[in-house]
């Protein structure tokens, strides 16, 4: 699923060189559920951004489903994100003025799916996350757990094989967090690969494997 070879990321701030990632090599199989842990500044987010094709590495090679994505341009990376990757964020990142329905539909607006197919897919996802009655509400009218379920439904809109979650339970109470984790386990059961950044060892226990990062290296 994911093959990373000696991936590095260097930030230059004037004279200062900041090495966020130092020659990271990583192999993740399809349908794995993996947690990424580590203290602040250890490079978790940078790694997740590179895996999520939001950022490009300074060096090394990155194959996502046998496709070399390290050298792709901005719009090509957009296409990869659109088709293969679903994001779930700590603060949900929903469009505040859009309804549940519209938020879930959003990723499908960028790949030319017909209106009929979009409607069908949104309906499926609403049922899956149990928010059919909430489809015309805006995020501000939903609870945190409901918002995160909207975000998960949105992440699944284009049926991606890879789900990236950055502290998905960070803003939720523990009971709701458990519910969300239940959803993740279900997604893994569907054959999706899940990569989750978390601080919480209890949450991490839902995954099968944990990658520990420290100072830009895997330990």
């Amino acid at each position: 699923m994911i093959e990373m070879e000696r991936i590095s990321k260097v930030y230059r701030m004037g004279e200062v060189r900041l090495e966020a990632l130092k020659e990271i090599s990583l192999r993740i199989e399809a349908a794995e559920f993996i947690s990424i842990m580590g203290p602040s500044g250890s490079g978790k987010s940078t790694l997740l951004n590179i895996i999520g094709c939001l950022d490009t590495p300074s060096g090394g090679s990155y194959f996502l489903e046998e496709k070399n994505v390290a050298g792709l341009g901005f719009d090509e990376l957009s296409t990869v994100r659109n088709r293969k990757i679903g994001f779930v964020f700590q603060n949900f990142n929903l469009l505040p003025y859009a309804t549940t329905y519209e938020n879930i539909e959003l990723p499908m607006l960028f790949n030319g799916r017909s209106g009929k197919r979009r409607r069908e897919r949104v309906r499926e996802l609403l049922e899956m996350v149990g928010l059919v009655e909430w489809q015309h509400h805006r995020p501000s009218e939903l609870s945190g757990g409901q918002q995160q379920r909207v975000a998960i439904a949105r992440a699944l809109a284009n049926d991606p094989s890879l789900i990236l979650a950055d502290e998905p339970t960070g803003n939720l109470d523990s009971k709701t967090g458990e519910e969300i984790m239940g959803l993740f386990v279900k997604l893994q059961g569907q054959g999706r690969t899940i990569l989750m950044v978390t601080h919480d060892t209890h949450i991490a226990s839902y995954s099968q494997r944990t990658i520990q990062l420290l100072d830009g290296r895997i330990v």
Partner: protein
Amino acid sequence: MILTFFRNLIRDLRRQPLRTSLTLSGVGWGTFAVVILLAFGSAVSRQNLKTFRGVGQGFVIAFPASTTVTYRGLPKGRLVRLTPEQVLLAGQKIPGIKRTSFEFTATRAIRYRREDVLNTVRGVTVGYGDIRNIIAGEGRYLNDADVSQKRRVCVLGDTVTENLFHEEKAVGRTVFIEGLPFTVVGVMKKKIQTSNFSGQRDEHCAFIPWTTYSALFGDKYIGSLIFQPANPADSKRTIRLMREELGKLAGFSPDDNDALFVWDWTEFEKSFSIFFLAFNVFLGVIGAFTLLVGGVGVASIMLVVVEERTKEIGIKLAVGAKRRHILWQFFTESLAIVLLGGGLGFLFAALVLKALPVEKIEEFVGIPLLNPTVGVATILILLTIGIISGLMPARRAASTNPIEALRK
């Protein structure tokens, strides 16, 4: 998809009603200015051209004067005297001349019952009316029989008719010119004339057959001649040929420019048209600048909007929007604001133009209209400004870095 676009657009615009209305009013005001300026500008030029043509259309006037160079043994300083026959003959001989005419002119007493006036009386040909735009509103203009039979008939200007007849009908009545009875056969249709030559404006004049004039008042030599080149652009050549022909007949050198004092109205008309074209371009540019200010308003507001919606852009990029999706979103939004504001300004301008007291201003500025030229010019200016003011914020939006945007 189009429906979604408009729904999102309206939602975006309604999210900040005050800001939206200010932006819209900026563009609306600019459009209003463009439309009003162009409508008035084209009306003023139309009106001026019309009143300018009140004196006649595409013609040349020549006044016989005196020679300043010797010619075939004739001394200089001789008065140039032209007879009607010479003028008509020259007009026939020169190719490219459509009509030739002339006039005898003097101020004479005209009387009807107890009303006495002193006005310009012109002895003219039948073709004179066509060149000078003298059209009978009532009755008829002079005809060939009037001229060949030296009839005592006259066509009166509309104002002199009013002065003499007041409410009465003039056609068929008899007026006395220098005590001699003339039958009124026609009254000139009112025309707007701002320029004239030798004597009063046509509304004050009486026109009689030149043969009658010559027989009654004894004039042998014409006061001035006028002719119409078939093609106004050809006026220089026909003037030269006229000098040559008349020079041969009346004895003056074709190079003696003072022998015949020539006014080329086709030249005036040309420079007049150019002046008003420049005038309208000038007004258009002023309007466009007003609109540009509105456009700058849209651009800066959209830059703020882009800044505010960085997060939204980040989210869209994360879920797979390409640069062009973002570019298009903000570009169309700016363009829609410009076009919406433009539409409102256009509508407002149309209402104002409709509400204008046309009768009161027509004489000075004509009738300002929303003609297709004004419409097309406004739309072109609006589109240009919309595109310029939309492109910059849209490009800014499209260059957003998704990682930084999501961090906000």
